[in-house]
């Protein structure tokens, strides 16, 4: 491509190369800087002890990540549990059921859910959703599912609306569009010949979706789910409003808790000792490593899916 060495051309290629390297430098830089900043805490608490300790006490300067990791894991998993069926349903509706004139508008409407800033979700969650949760939905859940033996432990306490459950509901609404749009894209890539031959042997629409479209696009759907998981792990403001930032491990979904992101948002500017600040950087490092791995897995699935379709 570069036939003659033109000096201006060389300079331009160099500048663009440097610009593209910033991405690699930034990712590497984030790892190195967070590592350095948390070195004090890493030395003091180690790795395993930090991850497993439920202590989070600025007064005694004893810090552990377990409560924050627990909150992150519970809200994320619960959000995925609610979001995935809805997202796949939406993708099926948009690709297989909706009349043509509705496909575009509904697709865009669902994606607008992803464009709403997380601070708006948080504010809406605090002022509108939390009271509805506390007054209607959570008491109803307590009376119905909570009365069953075994699962009652999940629904104990006084519903306040500021808890793991409300946070998970908001998170699930926020991640629906990510899984939905990737699942939709994967569904539309199913060759129509395969679908038509299934219809030709008398399959119903649902059987085509279940036995042809879903198996064919499962890699893409996995990728979409993993991407949503990565988003949910790192979501901050929406959760910060409705989780209460209470460092505890609780079996009830109606209790306040803390996640890694909420801890960072609430305590970063208040950290008054070096160990405190360093431990917060340590939390950020854990979150970064965690989401990097999840997002890399998502990307792996999506690339694999892409390669399969292009064959």
């Amino acid at each position: 491509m570069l036939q003659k060495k033109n000096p201006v051309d060389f300079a331009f290629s160099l500048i663009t190369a440097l610009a593209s390297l910033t991405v690699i430098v930034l990712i590497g830089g984030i790892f190195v800087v967070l590592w350095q900043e948390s070195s004090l805490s890493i030395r003091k608490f180690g790795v395993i002890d930090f991850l497993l300790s439920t202590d989070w006490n600025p007064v005694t300067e004893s810090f552990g990540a377990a409560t924050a990791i627990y909150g992150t894991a519970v809200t994320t998993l619960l959000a995925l549990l609610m979001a995935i069926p809805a997202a796949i349903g939406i993708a099926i509706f948009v690709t297989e059921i909706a009349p043509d004139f509705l496909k575009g508008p509904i697709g865009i409407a669902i994606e607008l859910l992803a464009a709403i800033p997380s601070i708006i979700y948080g504010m809406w969650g605090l002022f509108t959703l939390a009271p509805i949760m506390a007054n209607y939905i959570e008491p109803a859940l307590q009376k119905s599912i909570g009365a069953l033996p075994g699962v009652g432990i999940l629904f104990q306490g006084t519903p306040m609306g500021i808890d793991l459950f409300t946070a998970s509901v908001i998170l699930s609404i926020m991640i629906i569009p990510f899984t939905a749009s990737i699942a939709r894209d994967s569904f539309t890539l199913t060759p129509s010949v395969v679908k038509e031959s299934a219809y030709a042997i008398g399959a119903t629409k649902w059987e085509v979706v279940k036995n042809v479209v879903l198996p064919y696009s499962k890699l893409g759907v996995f990728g979409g789910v993993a991407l949503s998981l990565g988003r949910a792990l790192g979501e901050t403001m929406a959760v910060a409003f409705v989780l209460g930032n209470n460092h505890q491990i609780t079996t009830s979904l109606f209790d306040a808790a803390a996640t890694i992101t909420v801890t960072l948002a609430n305590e970063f500017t208040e950290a008054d000792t070096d160990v405190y600040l360093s431990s917060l950087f340590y939390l950020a490092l854990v979150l970064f490593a965690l989401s990097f791995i999840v997002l890399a897995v998502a990307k792996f699935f999506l690339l694999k899916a892409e390669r399969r379709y292009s064959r």
Partner: protein
Amino acid sequence: MNVEKRRKVESFIALSLSTLAAVFGLFWLVFILSDVLVHGIGALHPGLFTNDPAPPGISGGGLRNAFVGQLLITISATVIGVPVGVLGGTFLAEYARGTKLARVTSILSDIMVSVPSIVIGTFIYAVLVKPLGHFSGWAGAVALAVIMIPVVLRTTEDMLSLVPWTLREAAFALGAPYYKVIVQVVYRGAATGIFTGILLSIARVAGETAPLLFTSFNNQFFTTDMSGPVASLTVSIFQYAMGPYDEWHQQAWAAAFMITVVILVITILGRLLIKWRYK
């Protein structure tokens, strides 16, 4: 019930559930938007844009400082992030097209797009705020720029790849060096797409709050000095909504309304542009 009938009923139930899922998704969108609309419009008044915040508990006051601060930070972030993103995307799609380096970089960018923004905030805090000893608008702008770069880079790369290779060959045949081909032919062909990418990246960072908490922080006073703490709408919303005063909540709703409208308009505009140009 025979098999035939059961299969039909099963199909009907499954498809109904899918339709319900779509209604479910639309329900939340309408619920959230109408809530922001109703609360926000009621709280809008001219003083919001012309007054600075009043001391806590005293009525009156507006968010002029936050509107101006948000604008300053977002514009600075765009000025820093967009050139880097566009040039980087150019390298991946043109000079490094098809190489392993280009593949790895664009995969890393895709990952970077979804990295938690609060982590980027802590990173900028460590490299810009801590060494300098104070929060600053510039730190906030850089944090947002870091979020923008991979978004702009990836869309630029994709859009440049859509420009037919024969177009470049035609320009090469006239004896044009590659940089001239890129600037005068390729960029022109992909201009709408790149512009849309920039629009969407602005929409993406305009609503960011978490990275600003530790970088530009907040400021009760009107300032255009980016080397000190600068107020932003999003951080003000966080502070006001969490605060105890009704008046604060009102202003937070008004600010939320403004920011939501701007972001949705930019997003929809971007999508329409893409649709109109690449249909």
